[in-house]
């Protein structure tokens, strides 16, 4: 067990956004946080590395209680890829080098440069090294953001909708990279997602949020038409195409009209 969350509770202006959140994650696992817009998926992600401050509960990482650690110490354990990545007049290499911030004392060292270089190789991005990030496509930029979180040398990666603005090919590429790195380096990844089919394909476990609580949580077996309808308020059918499970809304017009 690498990450354990106990009874996490988050308030925003005295309104309960998240409560009774508990789950644990093993090494080598990719976990998808699912749920409708505004349910608190991103909030949950940010509570895990204390970008937001939960009101109660605990997050244990490798036996440490995160709430006892400083922000720099947390950043050496958890990498975070936000939904929106800002650009500037920086080369990709410099942008990724920034991920060494939690390890930098006064200035970067040769070791930092080596680590950045090996992550560029790992993600097959050597050619992008000196490209300016303000001239990059969305897919390239997302890779830079992921590379930046990897040079933090984290034990857990948190990704907020890593594929939301990408085309199909880039979605598959990014998720496959995450999947591969998690397996090869024995870390864990937690990501919020909207695309249930991509989640089914690339995640090992699923946390479905509803009303600020964990509605269901477990392996692929928890993704049933009934659970999906309870969470998203929309009837779905789950079938198999080419050996892969797929979630498809059940004749959407009828469903939505019936719900009105």
């Amino acid at each position, binding site marked *: 067990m690498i990450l354990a969350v106990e009874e996490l509770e988050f308030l925003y202006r005295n309104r309960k956004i998240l409560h009774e959140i508990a789950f644990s994650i093993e090494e080598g696992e990719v976990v998808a946080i699912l749920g409708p817009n505004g349910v608190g998926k991103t909030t949950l992600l*940010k509570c895990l*590395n204390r*970008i937001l401050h939960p009101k109660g509960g605990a997050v244990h990482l490798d036996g440490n209680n995160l709430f006892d650690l*400083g*922000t*720099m*110490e*947390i*950043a*050496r354990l*958890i*990498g*975070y*890829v*936000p939904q*929106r*990545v*800002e650009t*500037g*007049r*920086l*080369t990709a*290499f*410099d*942008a990724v080098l*920034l*991920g060494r*911030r*939690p390890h*930098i004392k*006064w*200035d970067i060292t*040769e070791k930092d*440069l*080596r*680590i*950045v*270089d*090996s*992550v*560029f*190789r*790992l993600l097959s991005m050597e050619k992008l*090294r*000196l490209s*300016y990030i303000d001239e990059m496509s969305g897919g390239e930029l997302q890779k830079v*953001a992921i590379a*930046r*979180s*990897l*040079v*933090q*040398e*984290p*034990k857990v990666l*948190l990704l907020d909708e890593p594929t939301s603005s990408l085309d199909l090919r880039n979605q598959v590429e990014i998720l496959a990279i995450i999947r591969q790195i998690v397996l090869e*380096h*024995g*870390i864990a990844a937690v990501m919020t997602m909207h695309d249930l089919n991509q989640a089914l394909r690339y995640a090992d476990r699923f946390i479905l949020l509803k009303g600020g609580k964990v509605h269901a949580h477990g392996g692929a077996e928890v993704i049933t038409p009934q659970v999906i309808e309870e969470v998203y308020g929309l009837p779905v059918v789950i079938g198999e195409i080419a050996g892969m499970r797929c979630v498809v809304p059940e004749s959407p017009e009828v469903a939505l009209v019936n719900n009105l």
Partner: protein
Amino acid sequence: MHFASGAVPEDYLLYVRRKYFWIMGGLLLLFFMLVYSISVGAVEIPLYKVIQTLLGQEPMTRSDENIWRIVWNIRLPQALAAIVAGAGLSVAGVVMQSILRNPIASPFTLGISNAGAFGAAVSVVVLGTGKVQSTVADAVIINNPYLTTMASFLFCLLATGVILLISKIRGASPEVMVLAGVALSSLFTAGTMFLQYFADDTQLAAVVFWTFGDVGRINWLELEIMTGVVLLAILFFIANCWNYNAIDAGDETAKGLGVDVEKIRLIGMVVAALVSAVIVAFLGVIGFVGLICPHMVRRVIGDDQKYLIPGSTLLGGILLLVSDTAARLIISPYVLPVSILTAFMGAPAFIYLLLRGYKR
């Protein structure tokens, strides 16, 4: 997770080395400009004499003594004041642009300059510290410069304090800070106009004259204070360059990298405001340098704060020194206040850079 297989990429090192060369070139240019600036003016001094005098050679002849006096009492303090003020305003600007995530942030944006001008106006009009002389070259003197400087400095601090207070209540978000600054700026401008409306001719002239920022009004003691503050601020900003890089990548990325964004933003604001306040209080309002120099440097060496901060510091010093030298030469023997020249010289250069785009 550990990565050790990588090498240090040559092409990146080359890219970084280019930035070093730009900065080294800037240093050389600054030194050359310093010597040149001291040599020109109403009395021409040959370059080698300037260097001899600066190196501390004792004057032998009467004319050498005059040169010694001109260099050490008039031109050197003025040139150094231009360098230090330009560097300070520019470095304050580059840091404000980063922590406020706003390309038009500068000591002006937050109302600091206008607050300083208002403070000087209060001193002149209400406390009666201004009068007019009849010579053309030095038409107006402030007969109690220390009181005027103090009043100006206090109002700069007041403006900063109000912005920080608002940030404390509403959270240190860049939008709140910038908008509060714009509001304060207008408020102080209105306040200055109000005082000017009721001022007599003498006071009015003194207030207007004060707002023309001029590096010629500094003495050695003031120069030492200003240099100390600016140097400390530059060191502080350089020590924080990775934090500013992180904030440039977005607040959430920065927080994910362990950076306490709100704290860095508040402290950075206080230091930048303090530097601006000291410069404005001693020299008056000098616009443009703090806003434009960082953008000029961005267009040549990019947004990496590790190079952008030293680069902006240097270019700020160079631009203000060049402006001040030009201000002494254009309608010689009359001397223009440098604040008029900074925009005249800087704006066309900057528009050229805007049109040309980034250096590849």
